[in-house]
């Protein structure tokens, strides 16, 4: 809770510090602020306080997801210094909107009232519509922004109608009120309640790009400014899945038979479509977009299992996925700085000769995304699949493992390009901030893989 208040103040401060022309002070201020917020947020561990008439509930899951979001945001901010160096006209606007996006994400992981879920999703989405279009003169960015805006508000409509129908049936917006209602009327739930669940599922599926509501993803990821894509691909996924799981675990875990079959079909479709389409991509950003869709498919398994341990599974998986994705985007940003706005995978050719360090960290990230042992991605996948098997969905896990095998192909395509293909020989200079980010992400990925107990024991 304190995290939200301090971040709001930080966002306002960012706006005014920029307006009064202390732009040099912006980035250090934000980074210090975010670190302070992580510290303050961690102090809420094990307190389990209900805030504001039970609008927000900061249990340990909310605290840990908040910390994960803040940590990923710090990495994005570290990358941003170099990225905005050329264009500082709207620096404070970009920064403050990113901070407001983070606030929306934190609301999404800590809500205990559907009103707060709605506010959180909208704060996150509306900020992202602006960020996606923040490259005002680039037509691709404009289109990405418009597409994201239209599809996002469309999804909001579904989500909202779902919330209204749940309210109509149960008479409350509180998650625990809805849970009690479901348990009391287990046998005789009205039709509008089921329609409400379905519509909310559609709305949330749009936000986390589950097939068949994924079609905006690749275009928006490709068109948005690369740094914003990195932010979108990580923070939105974390917040979206945490919100999805929180809603379904709290409210509907006693009537799983009514929606889990649908989720199973969606998960299978998402995994296959994401992976198979990713194989055919030559644009690195599009490939990462489809890979993010397939990862959404794997993470859906945790929601299908719908157990307390699903939270750990999602936390681990989003952590491993976000860290690896940030690495990939950091390397892409650096290559783009040298190659003038080309996203093709060919630009990675010969990366190992141009910068062995970058090639090495990229390899770790790709191995982690593919789920190869000793990286964080492997353990996260293992935990997720084990969790799903123990819930009795072995056939889904078999399909998921098969899909991971497809995934290996296109992740290795990047590694092969970096190590075995001939490319430009010119050395790449690496910016200090990027070096720091790459070192942090590489260590985090390996740490998550070698000592996963750090997270699982804590819970």
């Amino acid at each position, binding site marked *: 809770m304190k995290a939200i208040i301090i971040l709001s103040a930080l966002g*306002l401060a960012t*706006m*005014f510090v920029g*307006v*009064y022309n202390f732009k040099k002070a912006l980035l250090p201020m934000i980074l210090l602020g975010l670190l302070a917020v992580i510290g303050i947020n961690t102090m809420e561990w094990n307190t389990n306080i209900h805030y504001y008439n039970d609008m927000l509930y900061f249990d340990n899951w909310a605290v840990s997801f908040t910390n994960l979001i803040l940590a990923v945001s710090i990495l994005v901010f570290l990358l941003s210094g170099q990225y905005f160096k050329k264009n500082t006209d709207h620096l404070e606007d970009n920064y403050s909107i990113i901070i407001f996006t983070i606030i929306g994400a934190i609301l999404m992981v800590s809500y205990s009232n559907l009103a707060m879920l709605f506010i959180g999703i909208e704060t996150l989405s509306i900020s992202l519509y602006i960020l996606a279009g923040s490259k005002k003169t680039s037509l691709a960015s404009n289109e990405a922004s418009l597409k994201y805006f239209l599809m996002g508000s469309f999804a909001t409509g579904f989500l909202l109608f779902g919330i209204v129908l749940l309210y109509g049936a149960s008479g409350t917006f509180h998650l625990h009120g809805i849970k009690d209602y479901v348990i009391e009327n287990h046998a005789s739930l009205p039709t509008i309640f089921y329609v409400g669940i379905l519509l909310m599922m559609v709305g949330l599926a749009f936000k986390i790009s589950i097939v068949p509501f994924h079609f905006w993803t690749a275009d928006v990821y490709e068109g948005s400014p690369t740094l914003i894509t990195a932010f979108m691909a990580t923070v939105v996924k974390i917040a979206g899945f945490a919100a999805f799981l929180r809603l379904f675990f709290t409210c509907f875990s006693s009537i799983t038979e009514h929606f889990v079959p649908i989720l199973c079909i969606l998960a299978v479709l998402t995994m296959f479509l994401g992976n198979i389409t990713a194989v055919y991509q030559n644009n690195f950003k599009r490939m990462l977009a489809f890979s993010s869709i397939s990862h959404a498919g794997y993470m859906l398994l945790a929601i299908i299992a719908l157990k307390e341990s699903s939270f750990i599974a999602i936390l681990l998986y989003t952590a491993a996925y976000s860290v690896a994705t940030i690495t990939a985007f950091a390397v892409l940003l650096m290559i783009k700085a040298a190659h003038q706005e080309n996203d093709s995978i060919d630009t990675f050719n010969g990366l190992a000769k141009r910068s062995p360090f970058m090639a090495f960290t990229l390899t770790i990230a790709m191995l982690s995304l593919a789920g190869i042992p000793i990286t964080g991605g492997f353990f996260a996948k293992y935990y997720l699949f084990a969790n799903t098997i123990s819930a009795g969905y072995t056939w889904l896990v078999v399909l998921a493992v098969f899909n991971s095998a497809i995934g290996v192909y296109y992740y290795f395509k990047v590694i092969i390009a970096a190590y075995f293909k001939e490319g430009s020989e010119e050395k790449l200079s690496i910016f200090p901030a990027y070096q720091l980010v790459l070192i942090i992400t590489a260590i985090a990925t390996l740490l998550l893989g070698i000592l996963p107990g750090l997270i699982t024991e804590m819970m």
Partner: protein
Amino acid sequence: MATANPIDYLPIIIQFIVAIGFVIFGMIGSHLLGPKKHSKVKDDSFECGIEAQGNARLPFNVKYFLTAILFVLFDVEVIFMYPWAVNFRDNLGNGTWFWEMILFVVFLMLGFLYIIKKGALDWD
């Protein structure tokens, strides 16, 4: 009035009929009764002042758009004050009741200060 019967809406229907009927009557009546003379001057859109030129549907300056949007945003915030004001009397004993709204207005004013500083309201 315990229940509303359809018959209760009769006055409204009568009013509708009268309103629409008067318009139709006026249009048809003036068309039938009025003399029909056309001349170049009479068909002009303005009969005095500067001569009309161009289309009325001109694309207008984007500055108006910005002002209009900012108006909508600040205008809508007022709906949060309605429930607060309606319950004001019942909550006089509540120490924070007044200051909550002050805080809200302070945030709103910070936004206002920001758009002024950003030059969104400058006309030149």
